[in-house]
């Protein structure tokens, strides 16, 4: 039995990497990947807790989370493709028509 803390730590690290990526990267798709990493980290937490306290609802939650992440990703890529179609690139640092 692997201690809960290990999982939590691992999830935390994963989350942090995702967060770091989302703060620093400029490619839209990479940002999306980072979001997925973070969601995975959260799901890992859920699974770890679920196992730890021996309760299924965490797993259920994770399942829903995965499903919704998929839907979200689909919409996200659609948006990114639209961006690409309009601007021929997905370099978000230059997408700042809307500011101030």
């Amino acid at each position: 039995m692997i201690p809960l803390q290990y999982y939590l730590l691992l999830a935390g690290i994963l989350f942090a990497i995702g967060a770091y990526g989302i703060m620093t990267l400029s490619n839209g798709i990479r940002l999306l990947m980072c979001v997925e990493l973070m969601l995975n980290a959260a799901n890992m937490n859920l699974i770890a807790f679920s196992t730890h306290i021996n309760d299924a609802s965490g797993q259920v939650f994770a399942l829903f989370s995965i499903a919704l992440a998929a839907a979200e990703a689909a919409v996200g890529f659609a948006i990114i493709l639209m961006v690409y179609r309009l601007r021929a690139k997905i370099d978000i640092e230059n997408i700042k028509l809307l500011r101030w």
Partner: protein
Amino acid sequence: MMDPNLTTIDFRMYAHWIVLLPMIGFLLELLIGKYWWRKGGMFATLSIFGSMIISYGCLYNVYVQHLGFWEYSWPWFYDGIVAGFVVDPLSLAMVCMVSFVSFFIHFYAIGYMSHDCAKNVYFAETALFTGSMFGLVLANNLLQLFIFWEMVGVCSYLLIGFWWHKPEAAAAGKKAWMSCAVGDCLFLLGIAMMYTIMVKQGITSEIISFNAIFQNLEHLSHEALFGVSALTIICILFMCGVLGKSAGFPLHVWIPDAMEGPTTVSALIHAATMVTAGVYLIARAFPIFLAAPNALMIVAFMGAFTALYASTLGLVVNDLKRIFAYSTISQLGYMIAILGCGAVLGVASVAYALFHLVAHAFFKALLFLSSGSVLHGIGNIRDIKEMGGLLKGMRWTGYAMLAGALALIAFPLTAGYYSKDRIIEDAYIYATHGGDLGYMVWIFLVLGVILTATYTFRAWYLAMTGEPRSYPAIHPHECGFWMKTTLVVLSFFAIFLGIITGGGKDFWHFLEETFVHETHTATGIYPGLNLHEIAHLGGNTLMHHGAHPPSWVIYLPLLLMIAGLAIATTVYYKNRIDVSKYVKKDNPLYQILWNKYYLDYLFKDIIAEKIIMTVFTFWDVLDRYVIDGVVNLLSWITIQSGQVSRKLQTGIVQNYATAVIFGVSMLMILVIMIRGG
């Protein structure tokens, strides 16, 4: 008291109509005067004539029929403030004089103002003035007196500025008001204090009416403010009002400027009636002054000083009307001074002051009207240096002015002789009882005599005799019927008033009954006052009858008058002495006099323009940049902080994500800190 056998109208019951009639005249003149009856003048004159009839009716009731003094009032506003009228010798003397003089000046003005296009406005204003003056005189309480006191001030302002298109006239009106306002605000404060101490005494009905105050003087004299007797402070505040209205030093500066108004106005308001309101106030409130320690001393000294001070200025002025204006200030000083002597003389001083007031009204009105006639005749030239030899062209005017001048310098047997010399004699009696300051009062008054004679006849000689010194003065034209009539009537009284009244004695005896006799009201009787007791409250001791000054004192004024007359004759008629080498700009004494002791300079250039305008400018800066600045600064800060912080919204989505993560971190730190703390 009422004699059932006398079947006559009791005019005393209609005293309020004395006030109301001219007010109605005012409204009629203002509203329809322009379209009816000579385009103005008639309504006013007739309404004042009506007032005059009632006034003399009252005088007849009281003086001849001995119907007693009468006072009545109606509740006005607030509790205890009444509108009331008092008919006693004091008010009767004033009201008869005012109505008489005012009527004749209106009469005169019908001729004098005949060519003015806004004649109806002029007459409306003078009618309002006369009505207000009646209201002031007949008031039975301080507030009503104050109200009409202000109203006459307004009329004065409006009439001085009647020729509003002249900037000097408008400025003079403002100056008059401002000088009076300084005194009036203090006067009002005095009334407020009086009200307060009356309420403290538990008096609630007719709370600041004179009789209510007089009856309670004993209690009121115990009140103290700032360690001083409250009555003294109140009297000093009243005195400030008097200085403003009656042109006492140092608030007299407006009177010479006020000569910018039509001459009839100068005669009516700034010589005969309104300026005497201050004297009347002290006379009316005499028991209060008597009961207030040291108050009358101040009155006496201020009056005497003003009398001398103004005389010196009269010596150097070249404007005919201004000479008479300074003489007015000086004569008012005499009246105030003798009232101050009441600390010793008692109610007699009121009688003397009032007699001089009445006599002065006649002869000073005469002087002004005749100078108005001069101005009328030579085209509004007022500088006596440009006149000369007018007597040839205008005999009526010239001799009328001479009559007035003789009365002014107290030439024997004229009205002034009886009134003014009596004042100087009694000032000596005051001096013998009233200490060193008393002598000073007497000396001032006596010195004033010689100066008065000099400057009066300087003016007369320069204007009337010698050679014409300007083109208009060569062919003056005499005035018309309305004006001539008035001059004659007034000349008669200027000369004979003293003789008519038995050398003033009848008048004095009548007036001396004022406070010491009981006053009837609709509901009861105010008993007469014991002035000796009241004087004790103020630390004064009234002289009992029988004191006579030494004979040299009696003849001294006469001699001095003759001396002054001689000087004037020598210098300005015979031209024996050439004064031009003294009358030069490099003579420091002349310069001081010419600049009116720099008082105008002090008030206008230093206080008004330098100090007050600087303060106002500073105030504007304060308002604009400090108080409003704070408001605007706050809005500026808000907008600027918005402008700065909107730059954080970079539009780059990673930064937004960073903000989210940053927010989470900060919140976490915050929460842990709170928990740790």
